[in-house]
C-alpha cells in the first residue's frame, strides 16, 4: 500500500533522530555546554513531530468505520499535519524569544570545535531526512491513475450491481467511503447477502480509492514532517556556521586580566568598560574578540524563523481549512448548484453542503426538490452521476416532493421544508400545508407524536428551530443509486 514507504521512512528518520538526540545529550553533559543541551531539546521536539506523523499515518490506515468514528480515522493525517504546523510555529516563537535573550545578553560558546562537530553531524542527519521526505513533499504522484480509473472501476461496479436485485445501493457508496461495518440493527437476510456479494466487486475500486486518498492526504502529513526537518536542518546550518566563525574569528579571553567587553552591558562600545583594568593592559590580546560575532547567532536565528514561518503558513492554512469544513477549492459550489438545477426534474436545491473528509474523499449532502416520486428515480440517478463526475462519491440526497395531492387541486405546493426553502417554493405564498392532512392521517399508527407540518410563510425567512418536521417525502427510490 501507499503507506508502507511512508511508514518506513518515518521510522528510519525517527530512529536516527532519536539516537542523535541521545548523543547530543551525552556530549552536552560531557562538555557541560548549555547550548548543546537546548539544541538537543530541539531534536527532541523533532522526534515528537515524527512520532505525531507516524501515529497519524498508523491511524489513517484504519479507514473502516467504527462505532464511534463512522467515517473511519482517515482524518488523522490532516490532524497530524496541523499539529506539526502548530508545533513548528510555537517552536519559532521560542526561538525568537531565545534570540532576543541572546541579543540582550550575548553568550559566547566555550568549546566551538565540539559544537561544530556535533552540529555537522546533526546537519548530516537532517539532510538525510530532507532527501527522504523531499520527494513526498514535492507531491509524489506515485499513483497516477488519476480519477478516471477510479471512476471507471466505480462505474463498472455500479452497473454490475445494478443488475443485482434488491441491492442496498448504499453498499457501493459505503465501500467507497468507509468500510461498511456499521449497519446497526438487523437487516433482512436479503440485504445481508447483497452486501456480502458486493465487496469483491468493490474491493478493487476500494483499494484504489484508498491509495489515491491516502496519497493526497498523506502528502499533507509528510509536508508537515518535511517542514520540521527543514527547520532542524536550518538550525544545524546556523550552529555549524556560528561555531566555525567562532573558531576562526573569535579571540577568547585567556589570561587572568582579560576583559570581555561584550558581555556585561547592552552597550556595544568596547572602550568604556572598566577603565581601571583596561588602561593597564590596553592590549588587543587581552580583550576578547570582535563583539559582532556574538550577535551573529541570534540574527541568523531570526532569519531562519522568518523562512520557517513563511513555508509553514500554507500548510497551516490548508489543514485548517479542511478541518473547518470548507468547500474544497477545486469545487465551485455555485456552478454545482447551477448545473444541478439545470438537470431535468430538479426544481430546487436546498442545504447543499460539500466538504472534504481528507485527501480526495469529498462528501456532499443536499435536499433536492422534484415533481413527483416517479420522476425522482431518473433524476436521482442523474444527480448521482453528476456528483460522481465532479469527484464526489459519497452523497446523501434527501428528496422533497411537490406532490399534487392526489385527490384534488394540482397546483398546490406541498411542502413544508425548511425556512430557507420557503421562498423557493413554486407557489410562493400560497402554500399552506394542505398536505399536512395526509401526513397526519398517516401518522396515526405511530407511537410518536404527530408531526405538524406547518411550513412557514414564504415571506418569513426567519430562522426557526426545526422542531416540526418538514414533510420531506422520499418515496420509493430505485436502488440504482
Amino acid at each position, binding site marked *: 500500500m501507499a503507506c508502507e514507504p511512508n511508514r518506513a521512512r518515518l521510522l528510519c528518520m525517527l530512529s536516527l533522530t532519536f539516537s542523535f538526540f541521545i548523543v547530543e545529550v551525552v556530549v552536552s553533559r560531557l562538555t557541560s555546554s548549555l547550548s548543546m543541551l537546548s539544541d538537543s531539546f530541539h531534536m527532541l521536539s523533532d522526534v515528537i513531530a515524527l512520532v505525531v506523523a507516524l501515529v497519524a499515518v498508523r491511524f489513517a490506515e484504519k479507514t473502516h468505520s467504527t462505532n464511534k468514528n463512522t467515517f473511519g480515522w482517515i482524518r488523522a493525517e490532516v490532524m497530524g499535519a496541523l499539529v506539526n504546523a502548530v508545533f513548528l510555529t510555537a517552536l519559532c516563537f521560542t526561538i525568537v524569544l531565545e534570540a532576543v535573550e541572546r541579543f540582550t545578553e550575548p553568550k559566547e560558546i566555550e568549546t566551538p570545535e565540539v559544537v561544530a562537530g556535533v552540529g555537522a553531524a546533526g546537519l548530516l542527519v537532517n539532510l538525510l531526512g530532507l532527501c527522504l521526505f523531499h520527494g513526498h513533499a514535492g507531491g509524489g504522484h506515485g499513483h497516477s491513475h488519476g480519477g478516471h480509473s477510479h471512476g471507471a472501476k466505480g462505474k463498472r461496479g455500479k452497473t454490475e450491481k445494478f443488475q443485482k436485485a434488491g441491492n442496498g445501493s448504499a453498499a457501493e457508496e459505503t465501500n467507497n467511503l468507509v468500510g461498511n461495518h456499521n449497519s446497526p440493527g438487523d437487516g433482512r437476510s*436479503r440485504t445481508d447477502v447483497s452486501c456480502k456479494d458486493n465487496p469483491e466487486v468493490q474491493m478493487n475500486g476500494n483499494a484504489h480509492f484508498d491509495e489515491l486518498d491516502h496519497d493526497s492526504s498523506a502528502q499533507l502529513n509528510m509536508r508537515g514532517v518535511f517542514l520540521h526537518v527543514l527547520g532542524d536542518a536550518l538550525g544545524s546550518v546556523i550552529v555549524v556556521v556560528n561555531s566555525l566563525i567562532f573558531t576562526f574569528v573569535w579571540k577568547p579571553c585567556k589570561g587572568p586580566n582579560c576583559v570581555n567587553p561584550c558581555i556585561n552591558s547592552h552597550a556595544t562600545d568596547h572602550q568604556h568598560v572598566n577603565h581601571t583594568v583596561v588602561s593597564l593592559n590596553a592590549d588587543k590580546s587581552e580583550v576578547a574578540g570582535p563583539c559582532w560575532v556574538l550577535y551573529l547567532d541570534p540574527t541568523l536565528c531570526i532569519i531562519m524563523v522568518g523562512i520557517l514561518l513563511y513555508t509553514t503558513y500554507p500548510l497551516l492554512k490548508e489543514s485548517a481549512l479542511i478541518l473547518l469544513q470548507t468547500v474544497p477549492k477545486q469545487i465551485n459550489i455555485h456552478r454545482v448548484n447551477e448545473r444541478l438545477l439545470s438537470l431535468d426534474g430538479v426544481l430546487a436545491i436546498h442545504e447543499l453542503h460539500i466538504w472534504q473528509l481528507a485527501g480526495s474523499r469529498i462528501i456532499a449532502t443536499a435536499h433536492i426538490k422534484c415533481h413527483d416520486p416517479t420522476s425522482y428515480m431518473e433524476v436521482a440517478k442523474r444527480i448521482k452521476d453528476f456528483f460522481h463526475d465532479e469527484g464526489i462519491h459519497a452523497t446523501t440526497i434527501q428528496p422533497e416532493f411537490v406532490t399534487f395531492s392526489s385527490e384534488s387541486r394540482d397546483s398546490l405546493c406541498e411542502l413544508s421544508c425548511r425556512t430557507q426553502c420557503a421562498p423557493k417554493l413554486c407557489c410562493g405564498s400560497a402554500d399552506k400545508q394542505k398536505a399536512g392532512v395526509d401526513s397526519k392521517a398517516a401518522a396515526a399508527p405511530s407511537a410518536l407524536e404527530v408531526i405538524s407540518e406547518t411550513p412557514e410563510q414564504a415571506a418569513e425567512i426567519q430562522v426557526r428551530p426545526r422542531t416540526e418536521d418538514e414533510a420531506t417525502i422520499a418515496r420509493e427510490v430505485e436502488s440504482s443509486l
Partner: protein
Amino acid sequence: MLPLSIKDDEYKPAKFNLLLKLSGWFRSILADKTSRNLFFFLCLNLSFAFVELSYGIWSNSLGLISDSFHMFFDCTALLAGLAASVISRWRSNDSFSYGYVRAEVLAGFVNGLFLIFTAFFIFSEGVERALEPPDVHHERLLPVSVAGLLVNLVGIFVFQHGGHGHSHGDGGHGHSHSLFNGSLNHGHGGHDHDGHSHHGHGHDGHGHSHDKHGHGGHGHSHGGHEESHCHNELRRSEGSSKQILQGVLLHIIADTLGSIGVIISALLMQKYELMIADPICSMLIAILIGVSVVPLLKESIGILMQRTPPSLDNALPECYQRVQQLQGVYNLQEPHFWTLCTDVYIGTLKLLVAPDADSRWILSQTHNIFTQAGVRQLYVQIEMAAM
C-alpha cells in the same frame, strides 16, 4: 444603458478602508460578552507584559525580560481565542457552506497544543536548570510574581463568572509568569483545582453539564443551535464558545498555579536555601499542565475527527431501534453523525424501505425521532428494496 449619473462609485471596486474594517471588528468584539471579556483580559495581559518588559529593561534583568516575552507568548493564545470567537460569527458563504462556526473548536485545539508545547518547554528548562543551577535573585521576583498572580486571579474571576451567557468559564491564558529572574519556574500551573468545576464540564458531558451557570445558558444554547448554520447570534454565544473558553481558562489557571509555584519556590529558597526547589517546581508544574490539557484535546480531536458526538452515544442506538421499528423500514444503513460545533449535530443515514411503505411518513417520523435526540440537521436517503 445610459449612465444616469456622473458618479460611478458603484463601478469602482470598493476601497479597502482599513479604519472601517477595524471599527467593524471592534464593534463585533464588543457585541458579544465572551469576546468582550477576552478582549479586556487581553489588554490587561498585554499591558502587564509591557510593564514587565520595561521594568526588566530598565533594571537590566534578563529574567524579567524573558518572562515578559513568555507573557506575550500567552497573549497570542488569548488572541487566538478572541479571533475565533469573532470569526465564528461570520456568515456562511460560498466557500464555507456551514459558516465559520468550527473556528472555535479549532481555536480550542490550537490552544491546547500551545499549552502542551509550553509544558514541554518548561519541563526542558527545568531540566536545564536542575543540571546547571543559575543564581537566582529573589528580590525582584516576589513582587512581580504577586502582581502576576493578581492579574491571573482577575482573569479567572472574569471568565469563570463570565456570564450568564458563558456557561463555561473560559480560561484565560495563563501567563507564564514565571518570574523568571534568572530562570525560575515558568510555572504554568496545571489547573487542577479550578479545573474541577470546569473540568467537570469538560469531562461530563462535553457540553451540557454546566452546573453553575448552566441551566439558563444551557437552554439558550440549545435554542441557539437549532438553526442549522449556527447563525443565531443571540443564542449561540453561550454554548458555542465552550471550546475557546475552556482553552483560555486552562491557560489562565496554568499561569496562576505557575505564579503560586514561583512564590512557593522563592520562599523555599529564601528560607531554606533549597536551590533545587526551583527546577522541581517547574517540572511538576509542567506535568500538571500537560495532564490538565488532555480532556480539552480529546474533545477537540473528537470533534475534528468527525466522531459521533459523545453526548449522543447512548441515545443513538435507541433511535436506530425506533426507526427500524417503523412500519416498512427494513434496514438502517450508514449512519454518520458528527458535531459541527458545540451542541450542533449533523447526521446522514440511508433507509431501506419496503416498496409499499409510506415513505413520507417514514421520513417525517425519522426526523422527529432524531430531533428528540437533539440532531436537528438530518439527511435521510430512502431507498426502496425492490421486490
